[in-house]
């Protein structure tokens, strides 16, 4: 059984996007690796600043699109030319121009479904419980405040020291994130 740390990390609250960007930069420079940020809207460059490098969403979308397109065309070819061929005045059975609209639609359907489900799966949603929700002020993350959280699993983590470090970045509040 995995040992669950009593503390998930330390969370600091900021008022503006600029403040959290600056704090994220300093946190990275201080050598912290396991950092997350919570903001009421996407902030350009923030994810990269805290160590997010690459997302598989575009690749998953491409695969969904290719899969959808091949399924679409293959299905029509098989049904119209192999499974139930209808000879109408000797016209070609593989009448591919007529198969384009459905192939196109299924390409889009495959890509769009994979994009959304891929994004949700990579984000590990749905996840009804998460330790960060234990912080009272965290409900402001969906309104008007910006949060930076250094996780306890970070090698440099030390509750008192990390909290002091975050205080030093002009955080408005610093709270411990408890995980029971």
């Amino acid at each position: 059984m995995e040992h669950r740390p009593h503390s998930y990390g330390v969370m600091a609250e900021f008022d503006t996007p600029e403040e959290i960007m600056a704090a994220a930069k300093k946190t990275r420079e201080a050598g912290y690796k396991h950092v997350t940020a919570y903001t009421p809207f996407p902030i350009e460059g923030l994810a990269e600043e805290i160590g997010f490098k690459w997302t598989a969403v575009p690749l998953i979308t491409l695969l969904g699109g290719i899969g959808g397109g091949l399924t679409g065309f293959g299905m029509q070819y098989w049904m119209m030319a192999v499974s139930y061929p209808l000879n109408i005045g000797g016209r070609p059975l593989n009448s591919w121009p007529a198969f384009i609209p459905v192939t196109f639609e299924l390409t889009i359907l495959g890509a769009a479904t994979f994009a959304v489900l891929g994004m949700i799966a990579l984000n590990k949603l749905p996840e009804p419980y998460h330790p960060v929700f234990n912080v009272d002020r965290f409900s402001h993350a969906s309104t008007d405040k910006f949060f930076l959280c250094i996780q306890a699993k970070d090698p440099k983590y030390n509750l008192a020291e990390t909290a002091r470090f975050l205080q030093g970045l002009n955080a408005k509040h610093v709270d411990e994130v408890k995980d029971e």
Partner: protein
Amino acid sequence: MSVTQPPIDSPEIRRLEPVLAPGHTYLSVTDKIAAVVLTRPLGIGWLAGFGLTFSLVMLLFLSLAWLITKGVGIWGINIPIGWGFAIVNFVWWIGIGHAGTLISAILYLLNQKWRTSINRFAEAMTLFAVACAGIFPLIHTGRPWMAYYMFPYPSTMGIWPQFRSPLIWDVFAVSTYGTVSLLFWYVGLLPDLATLRDRAKDRAQQLAYGVLSLGWRNSAHHWHRYQSAYLLLAGLATPLVLSVHTVVSFDFSVAIVPGWHTTIFPPYFVAGAIYSGFAMVLTLAIPLRKAYGLEDFITMRHLENMAKVMLATGLIVAYGYFIEFFMAYYSGNKFDVFLANQRLHGPYSHFYYALILCNILTPQLLWFEKVRRNVAALFIMSLVINTGMWLERFVIVVISLTRDYMPSAWGRYSATFWDYSTFVGTLGLFVMLMFLFVRGLPAIAISEMRELVAHQSHGKGEHQ
């Protein structure tokens, strides 16, 4: 890539109104939009409107029940006019649905900031319009309980749908469109559902929005993937929205019926769809901003921009009408010439003249800034254009079918009570769903509005 950025500060740009009234903060936009859903009591206006539209939905159910009992003979359709109101209404509704995706996808790719406060309810409008549209081909089959025959499933009969038929393309186009619109809408809603979850005071609301938001917690990592997925969806929805009405137009143009068999149909249908869609967005936006005091978010700038889009797409539609006539006379094909003359002088010519008045002549008033900035005039204009677009589909369906190649195959069409009651019923369904939507979900994308506040407080983004 070297793209010349437009100057951020120039006299022309300063003259433009901001897309968000000044003085708003993250908190104030969130409060104002969330309050409509969470705290505002149900007013008498909402209840009356909901009650009225709900009774129209009951009329729809009654009409459908009677239809299923008696069959399509209760409608005005006959031979040769096998496509009556059902197809007219289907094309009209699906066209209206196009504005939502256009606003959310194409304007997103073009980085038009003014889309932000209107995209959410325009997308909702799309979904509801597609739902209304979907009813018609379904009941038009005569045996709606057999509609699954149109999908390729391995049946004991061993046969498959005919994939060379535009009617089957239509099944795939419309169902893909409905699905992708729903996904797009839901992805956009996700952060806002989390906002509502965090702001909800009573347990039932917390639970409902909590479940719907999937535990979204605004993590920067999540936002990154979210934005990637959203951009990709916008890129995918853009060709999709153009393809859907193209496929709908194939239902007509692949047939060899005079007046249908023309290559102008796909672009002119798509332009018409956007035209009527923007008209419907205005029809909904004007009462909405008034009723809930959202004038700060849906500003005159939005209304004026939408009026300009209507003017532009209206001119494309006018060009389409012109080309139909030009090609008929220029080709010298006697059936095409005859049909063109039937539009001008036949038994349904009054529909054609009404169409020209609604779709081409009246919208020319939009050239005047005074009209574009007059809310009442825009509201009336939007109703006129929607009527015009309905007449357009009526003219296309009915005039061509009543005047086929042989005089012995000519006929007349007139709608019955049940045709009208079904149509009015779907109007009721559409508006009722909008009523439920504005009180159940945020009608404006809250997280995107916060982004707009952030942009505005830095003096950038206002020029968009």
